[in-house]
Each structure stands twice: as structure tokens, then as C-alpha cells.
């Protein structure tokens, strides 16, 4: 009996201690960071991580939110839709109710179904596919502009400024690239410019000589490419080798210093729609310096969109004095925020009302300047 009582006492003490530590832990608020930490697109996941971690550090340094310290928890979905569902379930399992992510639209899409259902606030800093916010979800936001906005901006530039004789629209048969390419083609067609070619390439392919020969045959002088930098880099490089000189244009997926590395001199003068370079913005000077001090790269396109996503969450939490994500979502939809990417204001769907894109001209040293 005595023995039993002793053990009971020990057990209850243990429970008390656990309860205490749990109470101490409640001072931190976990923010899920879902994106690829492994796999071929892990470098984009890194950008997101750099941004989120920098924001969390800055907020914690300033005393946290409502006395709570933020903590970033990394979930790896490897940009695989199947793993994204598993990650979303795990996030709910872990009781995390605010998520920055996911990165690839194909992962964000199935995961957003789960977050909406379970009332988890999700802000993606990188997924630009329009269909994510078209389902009328309440919990889903972005801090990045839509594909369609980017597409119309590109089409506008082609029609008004570039005015080429024959346009070809090429894409990489992926959600992001094809979506953009389709919107560019349709907008051009509405304004009476018919694309001479509309065609997909295989992502991961290395040989585009057949495609270039075809472009040459069609006498194309302007090529819009919807996709990412590895394929466009090779297309540029092989075009230069084969004496095909057209003006190329791409979306923000090609804005990466690797483009210049792959294409070399051929990358000079390529046009691209990209989010305004937030790292050049004077308001972010201190943040850029802090990231650089850690030995990380602040120039990636998703660094400051991810930073802003955390800021939006933190602002909403401190304003509502609540961590209930439904309340937060209502607040975010109704208010505007001053963030690292400028003023953020949402429409009913959870998209940014102001476009954050600009047309840039890329240079062979990897830098970019606003296009004329």
C-alpha cells in the first residue's frame, strides 16, 4: 500500500511538472513552415525559410506578439502532392494553426482543402496558381500576386511596348508555366495578336534544338516562355549557338541568378515579370543586412513575401489578441497591413488587391533593372 501511495505521489508530481512545462511552453506560438526542404526545388524552399526565420527573429527580438514568442516549425513536403497531404495532417496533428506555405501550387492545392476544413490559417508566399483562391475558401491567403496578373502584365507589355511581328508562346507543361502561357496567349488573342506557336516542352529536358529550329522556321521574333529558369536558360543558350535571335520574356520563375549562369551572355536583355525586388527597397535595408549577416541570400523572390506572410499573421494576432485562426482570417480580410513588401490588402478571395509585379530586364551578371 505504502509502495502504491509513493508511486502515486511520484506520478502526480510528474504530471504537475509536465503541466508546468506545458504552461511554460504555451508562451511560444508555433508557426508552421511548409515547403520543400529536399528534392529538386529545395532551393525555393530555402528562400521561404530564410524569409520566415528572419521575420520570426525580428519579431521575437522586438518582444514577440502579445508576450508570446514565435517559433518556426519546418515541415518538408518535397513539393510532392502526396506528401503535402501528409504534412497538412501532421500540422493539424501538432496543433499548429498558422502556416506559411506551401510552395509549389500542386502541393498547396490539396493541402489548402485540409486547412480550410480544419480552420488553419494558411498564407502562401510563393504559390501563384489562380485556382487556389477560386474555391471561396476563408482561411487561405497569399502574399504574392497571381499568375493571371503576371500574365496580363506580360501581355500588356508585349502589345504596347515590345510590339513584335510574330510571337511564340512556349511553356513547360507544368501548372505554373502552362497557366501563365495560356493567359498570355489568350490576352494576346483578345487584342488581335495570334501567337504563331503555342507549345509545351518537357521539364528536365536538355535538348531544345528541335524547338529552336522550329521557332526559326516560323520567323518568330518574340518568345514568351512560361516556366522556370533551367529550361529557359538552356533555350537561350542553344538559341545563341544556333543563331536564333529573338527577344525572350518569362515570368518570375526565371528570375534567378542561375539563369545567367546557365545561359551566360545569352541571358543579357531577357525580359521578365517579377515581384518588385524587395531587397532593393530602402525600407528593408536593415532586414537585408540582418539576413546577409547570417550568411544567407536575401535576393530570392520568395524571401520577403515569406517575411511579409509572418508579419501579416503577427499583426493580426496582436490586433485581435487572439490566436483563433478563424478570427484572424476575418481580421486579415478586413484590414490592411504595412509589411516588408509594402501595403498588403486583401480582396474577398484572399488575393492581394495590388499587383506586386513589374517588368524587368535581366542582365548577364545576374542583376535586373526595370524595363523601359
Amino acid at each position, binding site marked *: 500500500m505504502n509502495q502504491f501511495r509513493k508511486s502515486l505521489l511520484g506520478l502526480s508530481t510528474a504530471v504537475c511538472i509536465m503541466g508546468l512545462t506545458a504552461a511554460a511552453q504555451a508562451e511560444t506560438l508555433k508557426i508552421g513552415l511548409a515547403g520543400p*526542404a*529536399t528534392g529538386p526545388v529545395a532551393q525555393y524552399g530555402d528562400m521561404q525559410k530564410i524569409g520566415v526565420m528572419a521575420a520570426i527573429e525580428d519579431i521575437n527580438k522586438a518582444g514577440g506578439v502579445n508576450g508570446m514568442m514565435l517559433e518556426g516549425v519546418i515541415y*518538408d513536403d518535397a513539393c*510532392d*502532392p*502526396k506528401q503535402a*497531404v*501528409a504534412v497538412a*495532417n*501532421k500540422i*493539424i*496533428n*501538432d496543433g499548429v494553426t498558422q502556416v506559411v506555405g506551401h510552395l509549389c501550387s*500542386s502541393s498547396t*492545392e*490539396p493541402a489548402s*482543402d*485540409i486547412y480550410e*476544413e*480544419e480552420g488553419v490559417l494558411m498564407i502562401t508566399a510563393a504559390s501563384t*496558381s489562380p*485556382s487556389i483562391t477560386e*474555391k471561396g475558401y476563408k482561411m487561405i491567403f497569399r502574399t504574392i500576386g497571381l499568375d493571371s496578373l503576371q500574365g496580363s502584365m506580360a501581355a500588356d507589355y508585349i502589345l504596347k511596348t515590345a510590339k513584335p511581328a510574330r510571337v511564340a508562346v512556349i511553356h513547360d*507543361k*507544368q*501548372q505554373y508555366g*502552362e*497557366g501563365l502561357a495560356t493567359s498570355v496567349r489568350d490576352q494576346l488573342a483578345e487584342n488581335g495578336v495570334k501567337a504563331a506557336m503555342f507549345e*509545351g516542352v518537357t521539364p528536365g529536358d536538355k535538348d531544345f534544338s528541335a524547338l529552336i529550329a522550329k521557332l526559326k522556321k516560323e520567323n518568330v521574333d518574340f518568345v514568351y516562355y512560361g516556366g522556370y529558369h533551367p529550361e529557359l536558360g538552356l533555350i537561350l543558350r542553344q538559341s545563341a549557338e544556333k543563331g536564333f535571335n529573338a527577344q525572350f520574356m518569362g515570368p518570375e520563375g526565371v528570375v534567378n541568378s542561375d539563369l*545567367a*549562369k546557365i545561359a*551566360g551572355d545569352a541571358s543579357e536583355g531577357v525580359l521578365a515579370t517579377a515581384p518588385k525586388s524587395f531587397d532593393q527597397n530602402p525600407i528593408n535595408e536593415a532586414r537585408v543586412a540582418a539576413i546577409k549577416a547570417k550568411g544567407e541570400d536575401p535576393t530570392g523572390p520568395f524571401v520577403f513575401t515569406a517575411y511579409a506572410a509572418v508579419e501579416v499573421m503577427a499583426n493580426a494576432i496582436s490586433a485581435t489578441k487572439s490566436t483563433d485562426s478563424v478570427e484572424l482570417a476575418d481580421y486579415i480580410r478586413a484590414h490592411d497591413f504595412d509589411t516588408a513588401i509594402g501595403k498588403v490588402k486583401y480582396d474577398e478571395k484572399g488575393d492581394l488587391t495590388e499587383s506586386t509585379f513589374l517588368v524587368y530586364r535581366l542582365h*548577364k*551578371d*545576374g542583376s535586373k533593372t526595370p524595363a523601359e
Partner: protein
Amino acid sequence: MNSSKLYNAFFAAGISLILACLMIGVKLDTDSTVLTVKGATTEQWMWILTGISVVFLSQLFSTQIDALFGAIPKPNIQKILPEERKMAALKPWLIAAVIVVMLIWPFMVSRGTVDLATLTLIYIMLGLGLNIVVGLAGLLDLGFVAFYAVGAYTYALLSQYFGMSFWACLPISAALAASFGFLLGFPVLRLRGDYLAIVTLGFGEIIRILLNNWTSLTGGPNGISGIAKPTLFGLEFNRKAKEEGASTFHEYFGMDYSSSYKVIFLYLVAVLLVICVIYLINRLMRMPIGRAWEALREDEIACRSLGLNRTIIKLSAFTIGASTAGFAGCFFAARQGFISPESFVFIESAIILAIVVLGGMGSQMGIIFAAIIMTILPELAREFSEYRMLLFGLLMVVMMRWRPQGLIPMKRPNLELKQQ
């Protein structure tokens, strides 16, 4: 310690040095736009040297190490399990116990675990399907994922365009996947061995590329989203019913809404499907056609001499295997709610094949076991997420060396002549 041992050890160490020096010892890096090489850090070189000395020593003392490993007994299922006769009496109880545990278990654990279990059950279904083709009939199929994709897209499309329910689509998915299996099987089954492997591989790729390119029907790379979840006799598991007038599960039973009901229900549906598949395949294996599959694998010419029609036998294996994948695909689409061609790439086929081979070709128990290992291990190894795939590859190689007949080899009565 003779000199040939020493020579071997030096040789192996030298080879490892060559392997490591350029690929690990030097790293390509771009300095603005110029490609440069960077030597590894001292720490990395220390690791390389440690690795090389391990190779050197293990070669030098290979006999002793082999003896040590030989001393570790290989797992012997036969000895653990009770005798055959006792087993027969115990079996129904055992099965009942397993089923009960599988039904009760999800209510006690977290949502993420149940979800993982559901994923495992999908792989079990796929493994069992491929087992018919590869394990029993001995036809090497590297494009099994094609049928999985057909099943998934059948449900997704029928649900999107005609609003059909999961339960109605389940047999349709299986039937359509089976007919794809039939169509593919008809011309290619006269090919032998490795030609069959490459043709099925090509077929898998063709299906994926077609799904990706046929944007008007399949949504191309955008995939299909908002696929309905299965219902329980028309009761939905959502917070609010999607259709007017329909009631949800928790409203009908007057319970509070809990998101885990849906996850648990999905899991239970998966359990049900897996039990059905196991039962059906077990019956089939005991039927003449099942015996014929194995006979054909063992000796094709003998089978033909005995008057068995090899085309029909192969086709039936191919078709039934494909229909199982169709089942799994239909369920996958329902679990996922969103599918795109990205989920049906070659590596998926390779993983399913690895499950079959790891488990032991032909052995259902083994495959279930292997599917559990293959889906849970990567989850456990998330901390080493960078090394996950590396270890996965290594595991496949090591398993083949250590236990090529699989974890739980297929059991069948046999007589062996001992070598003199």
C-alpha cells in the same frame, strides 16, 4: 593475415579514395557567373579518410567480420510461429484479432498517424496487385503506376463531370483499369522478360504524358481538385453538407463535429478495401487460374506442353493486377482530394516493385509487412530528411544482398535434394 588480404585491403581503400576524391572532395560552385571548384573542408576530408580507413579495415578483417555476421541468426519465421496444425486452428482467431485491432486502433491515436496508416494501406493494395503480376505470374511490370493513374483519374473525372459517388466509381475504376491492362497486355504479352519490362515502363510514361497534355479533359498539369470524399450511405463527413438537404454524419448521429471522423472513416474504408482485396486474391490463388500463374512463372514451356493457354493466363494476371491498382487509384483520389500527373511518375512504380520484392515475391504477408516498412520508415527518418532517399536506395541494395527472397518468403510445400 596473409599478403593477399593486405593487398585486397589496400586495393579497396585505393578505390574508395578514387570514388571519393573528386565527387566529395571537390565541390562545383559558381562565383558570380564563372564556374569554380572548391576543395572540401578539413572536416569533410576527415570524414572521407575515416570512411576509407573503415573500408580498409573491413577488408583486412573481412573473414572475422563475416564470421561475426554469420553468428547473428537470420530471422526464422517458421520457428517463431507455432506448428502447422496448431496454426490452422489459431488462424481464424488470429485474423479476427488483427481485424478488431485494426478497427479500434485509430480511435486511440492521433490524426496524423491514422492518415499515415491510410497511405500505408494504399501501398498495401498496390503491392498486392503488383504481386499478382510480378510475384505470381513472373511478368516484370515497370509501369504499374499507369493503372493506378487510370483508377484515380476515372474517379476524379466521373466525380467532376457527372457528380458520381465514390462507391459507384469504385467498380468502374477497377473495371477501366482492368480493361487498360487487357488492352496493353494483349499485344505485349508475347514479349519476354526484359522487353516486357521496358514496354510497360514506356506505357506508364505514355499514360502520364497523355494525362499531362490532354488539358481539356484532365486539366493537364493543373490536375483535378475538389474530388468528393467517400460517404457513409450518403452521409458526408464535412462540417457542413455540400448539397442542400443532405445531412452530415455528425448531424445525423447528433454528435459534435470532429475532423478526425473523416480521417478515421477514410482509414476504415481503406481497411475494408484491403480486406476485400486480400480475400479475393487468396481465393484466386487457390483456383486453377492461380495455380496456372505460378506454373507459368516456373516453366513456360512445360505449361504449354500441358495444354495451358499462356495468353489467357498471362492476360488474366495482368488484368486482375491492373484492377487492383484501379481500386487503389480510386481510393487515392478520394483521400487526396486533388490529383495531378505528378503523383504517377516512374519512381512510384519502382517503390511498389520494391515493396513486392522486399516482402518476398508471392508472399502476401511479406508484402503487407514491406509496405508498412516502406511508408513508415521515411516518416521516421524525417530528421535525416536529406539522407532519406540515399538510405532508401542503400536499403534496397543491402536487402537484396542480405535477404533476396524477401522478408517473409512465400511458403509452399517443396522437396529439396541436398547436395552431396
